């Protein structure tokens, strides 16, 4: 980036409305390079919509979204998306392509040629054995699929990772393991990550900044420690109360 002070990602009074419904309402937000931001809220709070306005899967009704200083609407959607890693709950591996072809799709679209070494590095990053490369998606478990999904998102060496409920469909053990793996990758590759989740515990444990949304508005913007200390307002505290109460109840059960 030319200006080290500028944020990697910027929302400036961004609104998205569908007919009568306002999904996102006047959100203004800066995301600094290298941060891991969790976007938390109940279903329908607008967190996914806000995320998708970054890679233009949703177009804002008004306001400005800037990536590395550029208005995203000024870029061709496909060119914009090739610069951003995108991981989502549906995973969306291409069922007719092998794991290796899925991972290499981004570079292939950009006109690069197949690079077996690169695929093997990426598999290694997501802790999958090289023997997965020739397999088809239907042969993989849910956790393995999402690891491939993450590898695919990393293939184009993006600065920004957008993750939309990435572990939502996984069992708790896989979910926990994959969460830690993603956080480790974030640190190792010096990524900037925005992750949407409805699970406050996940947000508190993985992120270094937690944003809370309610009815399309940004209602809290805190570091995990402050949230646990009672900051952020009623909506945020109601979300924090869930894992805290569970933890207490579990502590009471411990012999």
């Amino acid at each position, binding site marked *: 980036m030319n200006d080290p002070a500028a944020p990697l990602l910027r929302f400036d009074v961004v609104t998205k409305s569908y007919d009568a419904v306002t999904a996102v309402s006047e959100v203004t937000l800066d995301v600094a390079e290298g941060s891991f931001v969790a976007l938390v809220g109940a279903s329908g709070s607008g967190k996914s919509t806000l995320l998708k306005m970054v*890679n233009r*899967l949703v177009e804002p009704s008004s306001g400005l979204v800037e990536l590395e200083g550029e208005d995203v609407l000024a870029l061709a*959607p*496909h*060119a*914009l*998306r*090739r610069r951003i890693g*995108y991981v*989502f709950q*549906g*995973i*969306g*591996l*291409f*069922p*007719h392509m092998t794991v290796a072809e899925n991972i290499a*799709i*981004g570079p292939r*679209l*950009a006109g690069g040629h197949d690079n077996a070494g690169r695929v093997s590095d990426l598999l290694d990053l997501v802790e999958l054995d090289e023997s997965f490369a020739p397999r088809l998606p239907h042969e993989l478990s849910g956790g393995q699929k999402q690891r491939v999904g993450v590898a*695919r998102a990393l293939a*184009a060496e993006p600065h920004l990772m957008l993750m939309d409920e990435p572990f939502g469909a996984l069992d708790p053990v896989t979910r926990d393991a994959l969460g830690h793996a993603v956080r480790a990758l974030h640190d190792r590759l010096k990524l900037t990550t925005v992750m949407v989740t409805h699970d406050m515990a996940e947000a508190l444990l993985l992120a270094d900044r937690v944003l809370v949304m309610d009815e399309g508005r940004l209602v809290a913007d805190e570091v995990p420690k402050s949230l646990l200390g009672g900051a952020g307002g009623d909506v945020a505290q109601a979300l924090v109360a869930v894992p805290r109460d569970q933890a207490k109840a579990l502590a009471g059960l411990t012999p």
Partner: protein
Amino acid sequence: MSDVWIALLGLGDKLAEHVILSAAALALGTIIALPLAIWAGRSAMVSRLSLSFASLVQTIPALALLALFFPMLLSLRAVFGDGLPTLGFLPALLALSLYALLPILRNAVTARANLDPGVLDAADGVGMTGWQKLRLVEAPLSAPFVMAGIRTAAVWTIGAATLSTTIGQPSLGDPIFAGLQTQNWALVLAGCIMSASLAVLADSLLGLVEKGLRDRRKWMVWTGSALAVLGLVVAFASQQSEDDDTIIIGAKNFSEQYILARLIGQRLEHAGFSVRYRDGLGSAVVHEAVTSGAIDISVDYSGTLWTNQLKREDNVPAEEMLTEIKRWERETTGTVMLGVLGFENAYAFAMKQDRAKRLGLQSLDDLARAAPQLTIGGDIEFFERPEWTAVRDAYGFNFARQRTFTSTFMYDALTGGEADVISAYTSDGRIAADKLVVLDDPKNALPAYDALLLIAPQHAENARLLSALQPLVGEITVGAMREANFAVDRLDGKQTPQQAAEALAAKLGLD
């Protein structure tokens, strides 16, 4: 069974025509359906409209759809000029392509609609352009379903292509229609076996391609496609080239027409012309075919032309009718009415002799009195024709029941008692053979049906052709024609139209 084998072996060129027509229609149908399906995937309106249209087309019987393209192309001549063919390959291709549209379109639209939304999101998310998404994701994932649609369309098209015979496009329908008319079951069976085998073969090859696409086995896709292409290449290679000098003789779909076409063809071959036959043309189609030059020669009947072409409803003496037709053809279509062949194939009311005697019926006046207790059988078009209206009104007919049969089965209906009286044809050999009596027409309500020769306008000055045909004029007696017709129509000791034409020529001392 050996008859069927012989018939099958003679179907090579029909098979080739059938393969080329079906493949072309399938290809055109696919070329139209696929972009439409892609468009439909992006617009609910297009999806609804295109599927409704394709379903609507499907409800039209194939035979009617084929026939409808004839007037449609005729009216399009106003735009594209008189060079636009209205018969043969073009209308058959268009009708069959429309017919092939629905299964391909429906499968393609359904396949697109049922793609995993997650996969489509991922395609956008990784940064595919619209074209890359189509090429890399939507097309390969929809391909097995699209192929299944093409497969269904192929089977339908091959089946429906047999009907293109009626609009003058040679196909495996030729032996089926000809065989049905002449009760040559070996020929019917051969046509059915051949077209069914072709359909099964096409289904298997395309099924192999479909399975290959589904299971991602390239060898299956390549083997299926390669064999299908090979079949097409063979069909193309085996097609006889039709040079410009070839004289095409048209025939309507009954025995007499097949025989007369061969009689004319044999004369022309002796005179050094090369000849091809276009059999089984619809009665309405054949006149347009000869006047537009799609065929070179046809045999028609004065009464038919009088009502259908000259649009006359009055009934005039035979001589006057012929003079008027000759003048009308020359002035309006440029077609040459060379002359009459010498016999009439008029409508006449016929009954079993014993039954007529028992009821005491000799004339149509007598018939009118007995009508309320009787069933009348007619050929497919008879009750729609003005002759029927005229004769019904003249005698005040009021039959208990009215039934339609194909012209061949009409006589069997009389024998089997399904009809008491039928609209027979005066030149039909079965009148004598079945011991039928033709009822008199004292009021002359039925018009004359002199068989006559029509020559396409482009041969109006072709002296060599006209002089080769001239000896036929006025030479064919109704007795000789009946005999030839019966030789083809009878069940035992059946002759082919070719053989009957040779016998007819010999009997009349022609050549």
